[in-house]
């Protein structure tokens, strides 16, 4: 049995994150290469959308993950708020920038896909607007945390924002069902994927690549956060890299 509580101590998690992060980065690099090759070269041109559909391979993974990372971030923040665990708040902080950047990539690639498909970079559609709100929620979380000097108080205030803001995530996800939006419905559904086989392969590879990338970034970022916040602890001063 693995003793999970052992890894909730910042000192042990610092070492574990350092061991795991390069592996996730390597997996991400391989999958990005494979996904881009399949998505941009192997997969056929779409009969209706021509080649602009190829934006899907970066748009859908970053959009889905921007929502998922937000929920994980809010989950960690809630754990920190309820159990007063130090590491969970640090993990929430480590995830926020990557989530924000994914949300931005989703909006940017969506605009560049919207122009040739709908004739407009931006419309105030339910899906687009709620995704924009998600991006602002990430920025709000980061800014609020940065604006409070006492880190434990900053954790609590930002956690509250994250938890309240998580209401937005199901609204984004179901917006294409609830309202008649310009945005198309879900491509990946429990009933199956409505795509050609190589397109599917490319999409899954890019999705897994983005996932591994986000984990690698969060793990590397949390190591700095741990060091910064535990800087007066003896174990930090004993590390070979701080000598």
């Amino acid at each position: 049995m693995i003793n999970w509580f052992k890894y909730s101590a910042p000192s042990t998690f610092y070492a574990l994150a350092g061991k795991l992060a390069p592996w996730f980065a390597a997996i991400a690099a391989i999958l990005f290469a494979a996904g881009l090759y399949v998505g941009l070269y192997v997969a056929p041109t779409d009969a209706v959308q021509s080649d602009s559909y190829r934006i899907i391979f970066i748009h859908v993974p970053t959009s889905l993950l921007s929502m998922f990372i937000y929920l994980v971030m809010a989950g960690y923040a809630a754990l920190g708020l309820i159990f007063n665990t130090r590491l969970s708040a640090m993990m929430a902080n480590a995830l926020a920038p990557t989530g924000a950047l994914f949300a931005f990539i989703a909006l940017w690639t969506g605009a560049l896909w919207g122009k040739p498909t709908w004739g407009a970079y931006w419309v105030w559609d339910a899906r687009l607007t709620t995704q924009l709100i998600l991006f602002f929620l990430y920025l709000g979380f980061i800014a609020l945390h940065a604006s409070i000097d006492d880190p434990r108080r900053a954790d609590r205030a930002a956690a509250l924002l994250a938890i309240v803001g998580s209401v937005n995530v199901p609204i984004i996800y179901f917006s294409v069902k609830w309202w008649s939006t310009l945005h198309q419905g879900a491509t990946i559904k429990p009933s199956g994927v409505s795509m050609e086989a190589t397109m599917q392969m490319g999409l899954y590879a890019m999705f897994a690549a983005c996932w591994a990338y986000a984990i690698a970034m969060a793990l590397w970022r949390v190591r700095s956060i741990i060091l910064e916040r535990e800087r007066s602890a003896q174990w930090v001063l004993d590390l070979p890299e701080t000598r």
Partner: protein
Amino acid sequence: MSFSEFIAMHGRGMYVWGSYGMALLIFVVEIALVFHKRTLTLKQIRMMRDAEGDQ
């Protein structure tokens, strides 16, 4: 398919490469920032230790 055809993406090159280009730029900047932060944090800890050693 020739290289110029691949880049042209049937006239949609601007949208496709604009999307992947921005994503690449963001990933590169994020990776650089994460490693810069690591270097900075280690430097701060060393400075703090040196300052305490002087007292």
